[in-house]
């Protein structure tokens, strides 16, 4: 009796060990695949388009975006991305890159921001936003995230973002934290960064905007969060809404000091 139990245990341990080995090679295979994609990221195509869109006079006012203030003064692009979202006195709002671009497109170029916010991803001016966020983020590549937290509004958004991150709801009781609240977890074969820790938040938050291999599209943080909420079985987060910006503040502040690699290439 005792003997059979020991034998059974040994068999189980053996199985577990071989399963772990097979898993290791799968993970190595995936790492190899990702490494092969690094050279030649199609996000570059979007960056080139975005730079053009920034400098070209467009919209009802036939103006470029070159006077747009992304937080570091009118027209300053370098380093702006790693300090967003932040508070803007003119709109009296904490804004992320995408909602700030809408402000500039409305005030400088005469576009209707609300209309663009309601346009489906990848269509019309939303497609142009993809290029803009790709280029603007690329201008901060290699710089460290340093979101300002000096203003009450910015601290408030961090606190709200933290609560949203842990909010379980919807048909499946999912919160952001269900998948992104623990170290070393995977969904299927995809590694899940722990967004509650500095390193995880830096790598998770810090690789968007990214070229999505699965759809062949450039996704900004707004679209990334939108699809997270879709898969969480939540209702639809409005483009540029305070909930999405608060979450970005929570992740970005948590990831302070991490290096921006955006726009990255992702599955």
């Amino acid at each position, binding site marked *: 009796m005792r003997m059979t139990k020991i034998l059974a245990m040994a068999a189980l341990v053996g199985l577990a060990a071989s399963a772990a080995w097979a898993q290791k090679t799968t993970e190595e295979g995936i790492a190899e695949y990702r490494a092969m994609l690094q*050279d*030649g990221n*199609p996000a*570059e*195509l979007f960056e080139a*388009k975005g730079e053009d869109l920034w400098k070209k006079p467009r919209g009802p006012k036939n103006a470029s975006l070159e006077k747009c203030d992304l937080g570091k003064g009118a027209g300053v692009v370098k380093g702006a991305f790693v300090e967003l979202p932040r508070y803007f006195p003119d709109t009296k709002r904490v804004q992320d890159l995408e909602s700030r671009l809408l402000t500039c497109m409305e005030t400088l170029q005469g576009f209707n921001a609300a209309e663009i916010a309601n346009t489906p991803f990848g269509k019309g001016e939303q497609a142009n936003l993809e290029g803009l966020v790709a280029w603007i983020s690329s201008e901060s590549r290699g710089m460290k995230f340093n979101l300002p937290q000096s203003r009450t509004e910015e601290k408030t958004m961090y606190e709200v973002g933290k609560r949203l991150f842990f909010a379980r709801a919807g048909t499946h009781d999912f919160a952001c934290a269900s998948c992104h609240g623990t170290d070393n977890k995977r969904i299927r074969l995809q590694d899940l960064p722990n967004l509650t820790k500095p390193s995880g938040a830096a790598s998770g938050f810090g690789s968007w905007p990214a*070229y999505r291999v699965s759809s*062949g599209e450039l996704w900004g943080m707004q679209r990334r969060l939108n699809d997270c909420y879709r898969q969480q079985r939540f209702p639809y987060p409005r483009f540029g809404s305070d909930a999405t910006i608060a979450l970005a503040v929570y992740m970005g502040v948590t990831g302070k000091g991490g290096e921006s690699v955006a726009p990255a290439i992702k599955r």
Partner: protein
Amino acid sequence: MGDPMRIRAQVAGANAVVRVLMAHEMESGQRKDSAGKMIPAWHIQDVTATLNGKTVMTAEWGPAVSKNPFLQFTVKGAKAGDKIGISWKDTKGDSRTDEATVS
């Protein structure tokens, strides 16, 4: 005319390594739209590379080449300052030509 390509051509010994990204849907003809209708195939089918205007490579592609295609190849004897040209033509007859300087 499609969006511009990104071409990088770098000297490597006696040769130049050329990396190209092309902006193209590369629709496979195997997918259905949300209404369940087949989306017709639409892809780059011919690619040509030139060195200082002289053709050095041609390729034929099917719909299985990935969206926003990546291509890397090595041109013999290309030096810094040489011009690498890339042209593509797709199944709708649309085409695009871009050029880069070897560095």
